Structure formats: structure tokens, C-alpha cells
């Protein structure tokens, strides 16, 4: 059963039309990538889903149309959005950031265990757990953002360019941890990423956007095959 389905989705910032009609679907427990050059509408697509930009067309999640829902209502349905720039709550401690992630959860008792799991998933956060999130490095903040999203026990994780501004080695460790997270929890993922290789290490299928429209969709292997032809375009 498809968990999330976008059909004919348009979006605009004021007069500027960014998405022209995006088609996308994420199966239960599946992991889909969104690739494309800078400005193709990747981030805007995630924002369309999480209700933080004016959208047209249809967005169905678990069979229900959620277009126009407010961000906190979308989150309540089980969609966790790790925004571009990580959305760190700077003045709160790392632990407090994680607890905010679990705000909606009813099963309060199992939250401490999940926090331990996150700290184990991202060991670098372990010794910084009490310090203020604003003092963390870029990589650490990215890990914290992913961990915080996981704390909500979502059905679908929207991941927006997790590698942005990180050193290659840090990006690699972050993506390994996310892959492990996916294996352990089976959470469905929609991953926006410029770095195609990092994306393919995580997603089963992917779609390529250009000027707000799908131009290519296929499994990771098919796309990787075409990769040589599109190398300049996708940026190796």
C-alpha cells in the first residue's frame, strides 16, 4: 500500500511558481530519493508535504488528503521533517531537543530508552547531551536533527539535504547511522539530496526534478546506470 502519494502538486512563494506538478509515491517502509540540481524544487516538495508553503494539487498520506494542513497537524499524523538547516533549538540542551521531538508521544515511559538508543546511534552526541545545542558543530547538529525527528516515532521521515555544509567523512557517518536507523525501525523515508551517491546508499528508488517537474524516475540501480550519461547534470 502506498504510504504517501503526490499528484500534480504545485507550490509557489508569493508570485513565484516553483513546483509545476510533481508526481511521487512512497511505499510503506520504502525509501525514495529526490534528486536534482540546485533550485529544481527538491526542498519545496518537502515543504509542500509538511504544509509550510502554499500548495496546489493532491497530497495523500495513508489514503487521506493532507494538502494545506498546518505543520504541527502534519507532524501529528506521523510525518517528521528534518528541515534544511536542521532547525536546531539552539538555547535548549541536546537532551531537551530530543524530548521536544517526543512531544506528541503518548507512551511517555519508553522515551528514556529511545533517547539512549539515539545516543548510541550517534555516539558523538553522548558527551554533549547536557550542553546547549547551539554550541554543537554542524555535523553534530545534523545528527541531533535526525535523532529528534526519530524521537517522534514517525511513519515517514522527510530528510532535507543532510549532507549540506558537512565534510565528506561526517556526511558518510551520518548517512550510515540513518541507514542503521532504517534497518532497526523500518521507517519510510523521503530523502532530498544533491550528492547522488549518498542518496543511493539509502534509497530504493528516486526521482529527478527539473524546474519543478519530474523528468526521470526509477530504481537506484537503473538511475545509477544512467549516471554516466547524466554525470555533469547530477554532479557525481
Amino acid at each position, binding site marked *: 500500500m502506498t504510504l504517501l502519494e503526490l499528484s500534480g502538486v504545485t507550490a509557489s512563494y508569493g508570485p*513565484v511558481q516553483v513546483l509545476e506538478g510533481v508526481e511521487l509515491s512512497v511505499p510503506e517502509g520504502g525509501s525514495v530519493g529526490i534528486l536534482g540540481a540546485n533550485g529544481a524544487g527538491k*526542498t519545496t516538495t518537502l515543504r509542500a508535504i509538511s504544509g509550510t*508553503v502554499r500548495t496546489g494539487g493532491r497530497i495523500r498520506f495513508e489514503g487521506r488528503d493532507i494538502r494545506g494542513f498546518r505543520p504541527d497537524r502534519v507532524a501529528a499524523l506521523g510525518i517528521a521533517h528534518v528541515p534544511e*538547516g536542521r532547525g536546531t533549538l539552539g538555547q535548549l540542551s541536546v537532551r531537551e531537543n530530543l524530548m521536544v521531538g517526543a512531544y506528541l508521544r503518548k507512551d511517555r515511559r519508553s522515551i528514556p530508552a529511545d533517547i539512549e538508543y539515539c545516543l548510541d546511534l550517534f555516539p558523538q552526541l553522548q558527551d554533549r547531551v547536557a550542553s546547549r545545542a547551539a554550541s554543537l558543530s554542524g555535523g553534530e547538529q545534523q545528527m541531533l536533527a535526525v535523532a529528534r525527528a526519530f524521537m517522534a516515532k514517525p511513519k515517514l521521515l522527510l530528510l532535507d539535504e543532510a549532507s549540506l555544509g558537512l565534510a565528506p567523512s561526517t556526511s558518510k557517518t551520518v548517512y550510515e547511522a540513518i541507514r542503521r536507523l532504517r534497518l532497526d525501525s523500518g521507517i519510510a523515508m523521503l530523502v532530498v539530496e544533491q550528492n547522488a551517491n549518498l542518496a543511493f546508499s539509502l534509497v530504493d528508488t528516486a526521482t529527478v526534478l527539473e524546474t519543478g517537474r519530474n523528468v526521470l524516475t526509477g530504481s537506484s540501480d537503473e538511475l545509477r546506470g544512467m549516471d554516466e550519461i547524466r554525470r555533469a547534470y547530477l554532479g557525481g
Partner: protein
Amino acid sequence: MSSVTSLRSNRTLRIVLIAVVAILLLVAPLVLPVFANQTLVRIGVYAVAVLGLNIVMGYTGQVNLGQIFFVGLGAYVTAYGVNHGWNIVVVFAAACVIAGIVGLLVALAAARLGGLAIAMVTIALPIVGVPLAKRLDEFTGGSQGISARFSDAPDWSRLYSDQWQFYIVLLVTAAAFLLARNLVRGKYGRAFGVVRENEAVAASMGVSPYRTKVLAFTVASIFGGASGFLYLAAVQYTSPETLSFGHSISLVAAMVIGGAGSIAGSLIGGAYYVFVPQLTNAIDPSFTTASQGAILLAVLFLLPEGLVSLPRVVRRLTRRRSKRPAPGNSPQTAPARSPVTEAAPEGLQKTERGKIGHEG
């Protein structure tokens, strides 16, 4: 672009318009009734005070709730100078310089504070100023206040006092507005603007936020001193009540309503400060405070850039109504793909900023 604007940009017409305005201003006191002159004089006094406040608050974004203290200080220095027989120009200079020095000292400490702490500290100026004025009664005449008569018309001018006062205020106000306009247009004005937007960005551009804030504060207090001089020219008496805290709030309101960050807006602000009490006085005095609060909030909601932006807003509304396309989906103009939409700043795309307007 409609034909009117092209005509207006024609240089000769603009010179003629300025000359007409100037002549009007010069002839006005000779024909207007006494009370009208006196009201215009008071508008000049408070326009200069609001102008000073605009420099530090409208343009540089530092909330200054102590401007009335510098007006009071200027008035006291002027009274002291006049009663000790100093020459008028020396008195004016002393009022501005002393207010400037005190402003500088306060700014050196206050500017170290971030954001809103400045608002909370500048509140102290009038609050401490009133008992201080009562304490130093050999200079200030204590709580009974002090009068100093120096703006009665001299015989050689064969003018009435209110006309003579009008010209004094016109001279100083015009000079103040000219100075402020050049200051704001120049590199300092740009520095003010950058510090207002984002102090961290300003620092990265080599503009020291601290020095810029201190400069803005000092200029504001110099204008406050000048306004104090004009206050005494108009009222010829001052007392501790002149610098009471309530006036500071009214000055901030007048600035925002006139038009924050706008030179011409300060003039409207000065007029607002003088006219509204007279208006509510006529209707029902008990409405005065409530109506001033309501007007300020209404302007903040409906016209964030103040009354000065009214003509522009009206024109924008009329132009939008006259050029509305056929009903249907929004205009399919090619989307100007500005990079901003993609790599929007951290978290969410910045929502419409209801910020204090900023006129060129």
C-alpha cells in the same frame, strides 16, 4: 510608469515647487493668527526631537525610551545660559554639545547591551532625571521650575514675539532636517541600516555595530538638546515635569505614527505629538490616553511605515486595482527563479516581516 511621474522628475518643476514651499513658510507667520504660529512653533520643537529619535530608533533599530531626557537637559542648559547672559548662539551650541556629551557617555555603556536591554536602560534617563532636576535646584530652579525670557521679538525686527519665535524655530528645524537628511543619505546612513538589519552581518562587513550605535545615540541626543533649546524658545519656562517619562512614550508613538526611518515622517510625527492632545482635549479629556494607545496600535497594524507612507500605499492600492488582470489563475509570468527560494535560510522561509518600514 504613468505620465505624472515623468513630469515630476523634470528638474525645473522641482526647483519651482521648493521655492513656493519656502516662500509659503516665510510669509505664513505674517498672515496666520497668533495661535496658529504658536502651534507651528511647537510642532517644530517636537519634530526635531522625533527626528533625533528616528536616527537612533527608526534608522538604527535601537529602542530609545530616554529621548525626552535630552530635550529637558537642552532646555535647562538653555535656561541657565540665557539667565547668565550668554550670547544666543553660544547658548544653542551649549545645549547641543552638553546633551551630546551626556548622550555619548550613556551610549558608551548602553550600546554594549544587546537588543532590548537598551530600551530598558534608557527608561532610567527620565526616571532618574526628574528627581535629579529637583535636587540640583540652584541650576534648575528645583521643582518650581525656571523661566528664561529670550525669544521675545527684539524691536529692530518690528515683528511680534510669536512671529520671531516662528523664525527661530524654522531656522533651526530646517537646518536639523537638512543635516539629518545628508547624514542618513551618506555612509553613516548605510551603516545605520546594516546595524538595524543584523548586527552580526554588519560586523562581517567591517561596520562596527558598537561604534555605529554610539554614534546614532550621540546624534539623537544632540538633536534632543537642540529640541530643548527650541522648547525654551517656545515656552520660555521649563520644570522637572518637562522630562517626565510619559513624554518619552508619546515621542516614540509620534515617531512610529509619523513614519519610522523617514525624515519627512519626523515632521508628521512632530505635528501628531502636538495636535492629538488638542483634538482629544476638545472631545473628552478622559479619552486622551486610550485614544493615543489605540491610534498607535492602529497605525502599527494598518500602516507599519507610518503616515508618511500613506501616499505611496494609496498609489500602490490604486495602481493594483487599475492593472488587475483578467480573473483566473495567477499571472503565468516566467517564474523569476531567484536562488533564495531554493536555499532558503535556516528552518522555514522567512515569513512576511512586519517590521518598522525603511524609506530610502
